[in-house]
């Protein structure tokens, strides 16, 4: 099984972010840590006999928490769960929140993988995103992490940012790969409803018509006035050049938005797409546990007062749900879904249910079957939702 811990706190909310995160004072943060302890204890019994293969502490900005508290959290994890010796243990951290001392404590707590949210190496782009750090601060954090002995580091990057050019994106890629992190997540900016970015740029993306560069969207916000999203063609080109560029630097794409040096694929993330059970602890965290999907409540006060699972979110997966998930989650992996595994798991051939869909998408050039796996082609990767939707039955 896998364990996910959500730390919903950040210094300030970024304009594009729709995750469950917000600033909070130290008192609230401490109460939250204690609520996490309580939740871990609740799961102690049910998880007896399971070995935890990966832990991922995500946020928000988990590195914002007092490092000692993080160490306490890991003590709690070890007291309540059976952590595998070679477990992959990741924490997300933002440049500007890391110190050598913090990193040493993390290392001591058993954390062996660091995920740094950089997004861009261009300080203007960082300002537009509302990030709290600069490229120089990232370099400092990265250096500290290496000095502390972290040998497995991911860097999060984002393309198609407002005002970003192809040249500046390639510059970010070049600068980052020169540092040789083991793993790179490269996402294309998504405008999520309810975020300031959606308010500002959402209309540009209607039907995919991102406006061409140079069109002004002047308004009150200094940082954003006169800046627009790259047009759709540029956005796609960035995406494609990313794969090409990173491949040249020794990073293989193994998932729609993730690249890694050989053997450094994120095991935790891969688990989500391949049906490994996981428990999500903390505010709003999602779980897949014994054939059910559920999430925790999303109101902080409720969680602090001991509420955990949101009953409304509980979904008992049917055979059909699991078959659908097998495909639409599994297809996120570049290697695709092993058809023999489907048969093993469901005692039916995938073709019995999906032959029409598979044939259609082979014709469209969005999928191919190779070495017993059904996988997305490069085109299919670009339009994965379009493909995956067809794997919903009924």
């Amino acid at each position, binding site marked *: 099984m896998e364990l*996910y811990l*959500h730390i919903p706190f950040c210094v300030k909310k970024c304009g594009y972010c729709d*995750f469950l995160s917000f600033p909070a004072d130290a008192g609230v943060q401490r109460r939250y840590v204690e609520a996490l302890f309580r939740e871990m204890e609740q799961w102690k019994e049910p998880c007896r006999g399971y070995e935890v293969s990966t832990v*991922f502490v*995500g946020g928000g900005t988990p590195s914002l928490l007092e490092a000692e508290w993080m160490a306490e959290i890991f003590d709690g994890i070890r007291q309540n769960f059976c952590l595998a010796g070679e477990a992959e243990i990741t924490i997300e951290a933002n440049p500007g929140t890391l110190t050598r001392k913090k990193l040493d404590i993390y290392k001591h707590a058993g954390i062996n993988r660091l995920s740094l949210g950089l997004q861009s190496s261009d300080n203007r782009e960082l300002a537009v995103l509302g990030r709290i750090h600069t490229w120089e601060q990232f370099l400092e954090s990265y250096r500290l992490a290496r000095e502390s002995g972290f040998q497995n580091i991911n860097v999060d990057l984002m393309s198609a940012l407002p005002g970003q050019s192809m040249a500046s994106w390639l510059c970010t890629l070049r600068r980052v790969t020169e540092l040789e992190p083991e793993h790179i997540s490269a*996402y*294309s900016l*998504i405008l999520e409803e309810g975020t300031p970015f959606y308010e500002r740029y959402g209309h540009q993306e209607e*039907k*995919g018509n991102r406006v061409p560069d140079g069109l002004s969207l002047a308004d009150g916000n200094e940082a954003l006035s006169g800046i627009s999203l790259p047009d*759709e*063609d540029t*956005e*796609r080109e960035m*995406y494609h050049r990313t794969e090409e560029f990173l491949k040249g630097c020794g990073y293989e794409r193994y998932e*729609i*938005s993730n690249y890694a040096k050989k053997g450094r694929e994120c095991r935790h993330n891969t688990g*989500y797409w391949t049906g490994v059970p*996981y428990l*999500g602890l903390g505010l*709003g*965290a*999602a*779980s*897949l546990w014994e054939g059910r*999907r559920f*999430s925790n409540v999303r109101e902080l006060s409720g969680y602090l007062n001991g509420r955990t699972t949101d009953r409304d*979110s509980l*979904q008992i997966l049917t055979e059909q749900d699991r078959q659908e*998930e097998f495909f*639409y*989650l599994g297809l*996120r992996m570049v290697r695709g879904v092993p058809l023999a595994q489907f048969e093993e798991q469901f005692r039916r051939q995938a073709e019995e249910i999906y032959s029409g869909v598979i044939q259609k998408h082979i014709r*469209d*050039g*969005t999928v191919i079957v190779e070495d017993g796996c059904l996988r997305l082609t490069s*085109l299919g*990767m*670009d*339009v*994965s*939702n*379009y493909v*995956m*939707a*067809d794997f*919903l039955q009924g």
Partner: protein
Amino acid sequence: MADISQDKIRNFCIIAHIDHGKSTLADRIIEQTGLLTSREMQAQVLDNMDLERERGITIKSQAVRTVYRAKDGEEYIFNLIDTPGHVDFNYEVSRSLAACDGAILVVDAAQGIEAQTLANVYLALDHDLDVFPVINKIDLPSADPDRVAEEIEDVIGLEAHDAPRISAKMGLNIDEVLESIVTKIPAPDGDPKAPLSALIFDSLYDSYRGVIVFCRIVEGTVKRGTRIRMFATGASYDVVEVGYFGAGQFIPCEELSAGMVGYLTASIKNVKDTRVGDTITDRDQPCKEPLPGYKKVTPMVYCGMYPADGARYPELRDALEKLQLNDASLFFEPETSVALGFGFRCGFLGLLHMEIIQERLEREYNLDLVTTAPSVVYRIHKTNGEVIDLTNPTNMPDPSEIDYMEEPIVSAEIMVTTEFVGAIMKLCQERRGVYLGMEYMEETRALLKYELPLNEIIYDFFDALKSRSRGYASFDYDLKGYEKSDLVKLDILINREEVDALSFIVFEGSAYERGRKMCEKLKDEIPRHLFEIPIQAAVGGKIIARETVKAVRKDVLAKCYGGDITRKKKLLEKQKEGKKRMRQIGNVEIPQKAFMSVLKLDNE
């Protein structure tokens, strides 16, 4: 009341411009003649279809019989025949009028005479009805009954100074109206012993009794067992039941004789045999001639109707047949479209009629429909001398076989306050109107007369008229005839494939503009596919406009954070659901509403 003398019967209707209070007055008449208590009254007794109530207009004519004790101490039978209020239903109005001896003209005390007021009065006078005016809504702050009375006298030439001034809504002075019905509307005549001739003015299908025929007995008598024959169709039946109309119910009686209004049933299974306007006579002792005025209803507007789900074609057919039982003017015949599969070409009296049928099919029969753009009937004169009436643009012959084409023209009267005359004239010009003249009704209002091609007004003319006159303009039209015109068929090609269901006939001079708008509209309606989709408009094989739906470049939910996949699944489900409502044409999926988007091309 087995024995009713003719001089105690009053057969009448109420005519008015829409919203001048016809239905409300009808309610009051029914209420105050005492058949129903106030508690039993629904807001509008005569309108018993939900749809009518929602739209606030009366679709089907209906009748009600009430008993009134007049000031002279006598009891009078009132047969109130309700008439539809929309220009689409002019023929239905005329048949109802023919069943009456008089009419109450309701005029709004604030708005005065409107286009339909005039049209309806002339129609009533054409039927030799005695018309007396009633000025309604005197409770409105803006009411000016003196001015309106003068207007009625000046414009229509009806004596109006002693016209009842009422508020149907408040129930004010309704007794004056009731007395006027007795004194101003003539009693019917006709010989109860003469050979039977009865006018069908409406019919209703009832699953137990078959068709219920609403009729006015002009001569003779009909009762249970009478062997009747329909003049136009020749069909014969034995009468099972005769009766009259209570409020919302049928009340059987012994017989109906000359001058009376009532219904008969005769186990008639098919409403096609009881054409409205037809004459019923006695098979064994027939009248010599049918009553005048019958005409076979000819639909003015046609469109294709297809079930969204092709498997429900038989259901659509059944539903249309059922609707036709009650609607003699609805026409339909099977047709096939390459794009839409099996469906029906349906003919309607007008656009409102079309919308009503469409809504009823969707609401009462729970059918999901795809409707093609409405078209008028074009007359094509071929070079070989043949003349064809074209109801479906797809069937247009090759231009080389066409000598010339004609399109239906209407005479339109538009009543508008003078400040909007300019705007309305501009609108009519845009719609290829020919200006015939203008009359001032009074200082601030004018009656504009135009000839307009029907195909320019069937889509959205009424909406445009309202929006350009801030709702003040009123409009009425009559089919004038056919005129030669330069018309072309505009085809739409999606991904280089012609989509038959999107073709339409258009005035040559407007073809480019319409084609361009159509392409723009379709570009918005058609979702992006994996490949680029050209949308082209063509006339005679020549492309005149083009838009492109770009290929989808990206459709990815890149981030799926913390293993929360529920949002992803919802997104995929939504996408899947969207695909279900598509029509596959070639390898392009077209949303069903795209087929109707042609309707909304107005530039405002």
